[in-house]
């Protein structure tokens, strides 16, 4: 931290009074091409410095008002989150994660939703302007999202995902534009982004001082118990259903995201990774492997390389391919098997079934010709409470 009152630092800088408006009728936004143009048209008012107030009591600075408390806690959450990602990067440089703006109490309007009311009670990473947006706390009466370290860890996960997988462009080509992916490949990208972010969010709660490990970190912020339970990765019963599988494969992005289904499929992914890590006590290896799998220029290509390679043939980017890339980046064979088993069951991957008859690993040891070629030969369906769904 470089200024305790303005809450600026090398990692993040809090910005007050910022206004972001997504306006489909704004010709400047429609014409914006470069990342700078996109950012400037979305955010004409970039906001200014915040002013935290403190009371010096026995040499300890206590935040003096509500916003000061909230902003200091937010700043702390980002610092702790960064410490987690430093570990998860396993020695790889993390300087690119620094220097991010956090728009505190921002006025964020999305006119495409048909309302010009500013949204409230949320915290999110907004890739088009490459900033965290923390909107006013209003209706939710539990811990505001910005003060929930798991949520900040989750949102930071989106920044990491976008930076590594999509080269930090404002609008990734797989998600928008002429090469935009559709149906399952698109839905998978969104679900991965959410699931991985939840998994890292949990990792941040483990790493940070405070309330400790929280695989259901949303519970601190949301009183709606079923909504929280639906994202709780410690719940071993999260399984793909026929309805969800159908939506995952056939819904376009508006239907899929409109129903928040990227969180449902994302929870299947985060639950799989969490359960595998918990069973083996090697969750940190999964965290490292996941980060490594985001962007890997070597022969064991990462998500970024695979997505770019399949940009015009997205149907080849499957849940099996995703699983295979993760498995490829886990050195420990037992852990790799556990991760494969979890994902095979929860995402209903194509292996060991009556339709394609392929094993959930290489056809035989040393031969790599199945969708899950990097899962160990011992990988199998049926190690979790998730029952095999009937074939489509």
């Amino acid at each position, binding site marked *: 931290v470089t200024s305790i009152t303005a809450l600026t630092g090398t990692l993040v800088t*809090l*910005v*007050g*009074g910022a206004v972001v408006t997504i306006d489909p009728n704004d010709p400047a936004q429609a014409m914006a091409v470069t990342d700078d143009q996109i950012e400037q048209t979305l955010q004409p008012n970039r*906001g*200014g*410095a*915040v*002013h*935290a*107030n403190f009371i010096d009591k026995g040499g300890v600075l206590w935040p003096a*008002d*509500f*916003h*000061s408390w909230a*902003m200091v806690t937010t700043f702390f959450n980002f610092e702790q989150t960064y410490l987690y990602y430093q570990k998860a990067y396993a020695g790889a440089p993390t300087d690119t994660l620094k220097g991010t703006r956090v728009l*505190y*109490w921002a006025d964020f309007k999305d006119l495409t939703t048909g309302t010009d009311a500013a949204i409230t*009670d949320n915290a999110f990473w907004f890739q088009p302007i490459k900033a965290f947006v923390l909107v*006013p*706390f*209003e209706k*939710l*009466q*539990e811990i*505001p999202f910005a003060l929930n370290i798991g949520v900040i860890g989750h949102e930071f996960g989106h920044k990491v995902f976008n930076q590594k997988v999509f080269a930090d462009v404002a609008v990734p080509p797989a998600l928008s534009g002429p090469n935009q992916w559709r149906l399952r490949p698109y839905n998978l990208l969104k679900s991965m982004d959410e699931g991985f972010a939840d998994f890292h969010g949990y990792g941040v709660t483990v790493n940070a001082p405070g309330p400790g490990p929280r695989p259901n970190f949303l519970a601190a912020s949301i009183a709606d118990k079923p909504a929280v339970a639906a994202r709780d990765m410690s719940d071993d019963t999260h399984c793909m259903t026929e309805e969800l599988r159908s939506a995952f494969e056939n819904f376009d992005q508006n239907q899929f995201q409109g129903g928040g289904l990227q969180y449902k499929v994302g929870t299947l992914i985060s639950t799989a990774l969490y359960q595998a890590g918990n069973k083996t006590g090697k969750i940190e290896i999964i965290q490292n492997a996941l980060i490594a799998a985001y962007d890997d220029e070597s022969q064991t290509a990462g998500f970024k390389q695979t997505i770019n390679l399949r940009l015009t043939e997205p149907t080849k980017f499957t849940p099996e391919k995703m699983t295979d890339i993760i498995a490829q980046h886990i050195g420990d064979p037992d852990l790799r098997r556990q991760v494969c088993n979890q994902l095979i069951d929860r995402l209903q991957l194509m292996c060991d079934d009556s339709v394609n008859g392929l094993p959930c690993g290489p056809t035989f040891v040393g031969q790599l010709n199945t969708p899950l070629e990097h899962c160990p030969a011992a990988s199998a369906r049926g190690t979790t409470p998730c029952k095999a769904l009937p074939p489509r």
Partner: protein
Amino acid sequence: MKSFIVAMLLLAPQAHAQKKTDEGAIPYPEEEDQDDRNRRELPKKSEESPRIREETQVEEMEREQSMAHLDDPSIGLSLEMHVGVMLLDSTRGAPVDVQAMGGIRFTWEWSRTLFSDEFLREFFLVDVTWSRTQNTYGTS
């Protein structure tokens, strides 16, 4: 003696004629000039100019005694309620945080009770004001 009477008789018409000119008709006001009128209305004898009597010592003491407490007998106690908006310095970086406020104010001009001098009576006061606003947001 005889000649004297004749002389008197000779003089008489003259005197009569003389008187006649003095007692001519009083001119109408518009024909009369200002000086004539003033002169005619002057009193025969000016009144004596009034002389102010010397003030007695008692009178002087009474005059110098302050009557301010009688003019304005208030003891200077007041209780007020106020409502309004407070423009708070914004922690979150907005130009200002506009918040509704309310409060009460008690004032006592205590010098009215202690002093009789008009200036001092209105000089000192005690003002106790309590105003309240809130800058908590969201979670209530």
